[in-house]
């Protein structure tokens, strides 16, 4: 990539082992939200956490960010446990959460690590704003820009922290469908320029398929309280990906049926497609990346 930056921190691995999180229930007892979560994330990887609403995706992300603490198990970044408000990670939320009284530029500045020199900080903010295509909007106030622009500013603010791990909590969830697609492409460009490890919470199967190296499906199992990892799918395709790709379509069907969504495909569609896919894989030992 041409946009290499000296101040960008190296991507860091994340290890989640045996993590559990309970919350007090209204009846005075406790409600298990997450249990037995084990996940190893490689440096620079993009992992999507997918699952139905309320399954604990965001809770897991907050545990990694240090905004919340696990009741059991451990989360480490780069081999050391996550600290409360860990400097090595940065979060972007579903809402842009820009301070309305600051300009876009000054909002992004908020993300700079403490003690950054003024000159270097300004240069870095300018660079990041150009990277998220907001170079023209630096002086505007949050109320003067669109939701997509605000979300890009929020992303730039997270990147200003030079995070080894970038945590995105449904960052495009509130955007309209078209903007969401362009934001996905933009995120991939950003990832190429600033290759942090990315953990992305989403409820959008297509988004996960488009962006992630691996898709982690969270959900409950009958009879056991709390959500855990039900499936980890290796997408195994180079990015940028063809949105109409047949293999992705099969994965999509698989994910949707795991999520309990009726796909309205003909009865033998999945089995036929999967069978064809498996036959193809067996025939080509080089792997699906080819």
């Amino acid at each position, binding site marked *: 990539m041409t946009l290499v930056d000296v101040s960008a921190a190296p991507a860091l691995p994340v290890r989640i082992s045996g993590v559990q999180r309970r919350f007090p229930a209204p009846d005075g007892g406790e409600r298990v939200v997450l249990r037995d979560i084990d996940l190893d994330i490689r440096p620079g990887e993009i992992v999507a956490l997918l699952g139905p609403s309320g399954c604990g995706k965001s809770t897991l992300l907050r545990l990694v960010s240090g905004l919340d603490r696990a009741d059991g198990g451990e989360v480490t970044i780069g081999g050391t446990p996550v600290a409360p408000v860990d400097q090595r990670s940065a979060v972007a939320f579903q809402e*842009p*959460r820009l301070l309305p009284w600051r300009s876009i530029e000054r909002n992004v500045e908020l993300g700079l690590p403490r003690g950054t020199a003024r000159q270097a900080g300004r240069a870095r903010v300018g660079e990041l704003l150009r990277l998220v295509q907001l170079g023209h909007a630096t002086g505007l106030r949050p109320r003067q820009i669109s939701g997509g622009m605000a979300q890009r500013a929020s992303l730039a603010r997270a990147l200003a922290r030079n995070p080894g791990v970038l945590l995105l909590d449904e960052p495009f969830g509130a955007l309209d469908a078209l903007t969401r697609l362009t934001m996905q492409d933009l995120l991939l460009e950003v990832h190429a320029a600033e290759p942090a490890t990315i953990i992305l919470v989403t409820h959008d199967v297509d988004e996960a398929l488009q962006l992630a190296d691996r898709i982690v499906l969270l959900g409950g199992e009958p009879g056991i309280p709390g959500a855990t990892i039900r499936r980890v799918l290796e997408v195994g395709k180079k990015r940028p990906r063809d949105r109409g790709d047949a293999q992705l379509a099969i994965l999509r069907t698989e994910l949707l049926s795991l999520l309990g969504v009726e796909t309205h495909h003909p009865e033998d569609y999945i089995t036929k497609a999967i069978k064809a896919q498996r036959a193809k894989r067996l025939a080509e030992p080089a792997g699906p990346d080819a």
Partner: protein
Amino acid sequence: MAASPEYLTGDSVVRGGAAGPTPDPHVTGEAAALVAVSAYGSSAVERRRRGGTPWRWVLGAILPAVLLALWWAASHLGWVPVFKLPTPESVVLAAVDLAQRGVLWEYIGISTQRVLLGFLIGSVVGLALGSLVGLSRLADSFLSPTIGAARAVPSLAWVPLLVLYLGFGEDSKVTLVAIGAVFPVYTTVAGALRHVDPHLVELGRAYGFHGLRLLSAVQLPAVIPAIVSGLRLALAQAWLFLVAAELLGSTMGLGFLLIESQNNGRIDRLFLAIIVLAVLGKITDTLVGLLERQLLKRWG
């Protein structure tokens, strides 16, 4: 859009929801341009509504002119006896007389000084108490019942105690004015800080801000509109408490002029004192209003 009702308080617009308006996440592209335009557009409308046009001044001057004419007629045509209602000219003459003797300026000066000093002290204390109670649940539980009870004491009830403790000098008067100014600032600041958008506070925490840095970067800027409207209320209270202080035990000031004129039957001076209080109150309120407009432009 986040729910952000607007309250009209006098000339000022106080935005509900301390965070102010947030951009609509569903708006993109061309619609964004429209949003930007309408944002500018609405401020232009506000400007038109808030004044700057001569018509506003003309409209605002009509009622005082009518009242003056009615006053003139009532006193000159004998609708009301002169010992109850002085003529406008006699009030002007009383003003000229007191001004020539230097008493008027002295009274205005000392009253304004008491108000400004008390207002300043009261605002700072109110801001500190309000921040403490608004930010800390412990301080809230610990302090707010006591502060609430102190606030419930009528202003005049403090006077004998303050005179006993601090004497008839400036201290007791400035203290009473400060007591009057504390509570509006305290109440609005504590209330607004309690309702700062928790998303923004969490954002600040996630980016490593806490304690005083969080307060100055996120929480205080978010409540600036509330602080300013609290200051405005406090200023009105300050004048109120000033007159209370000067009515009961003073040797100069506009409140003293009121009570002295009543005792001497100088109804012209009584009217003069009331008119001067109205004008001074309006001037100081306008000044705070200008400050408010500047602050809202920056922080609103």
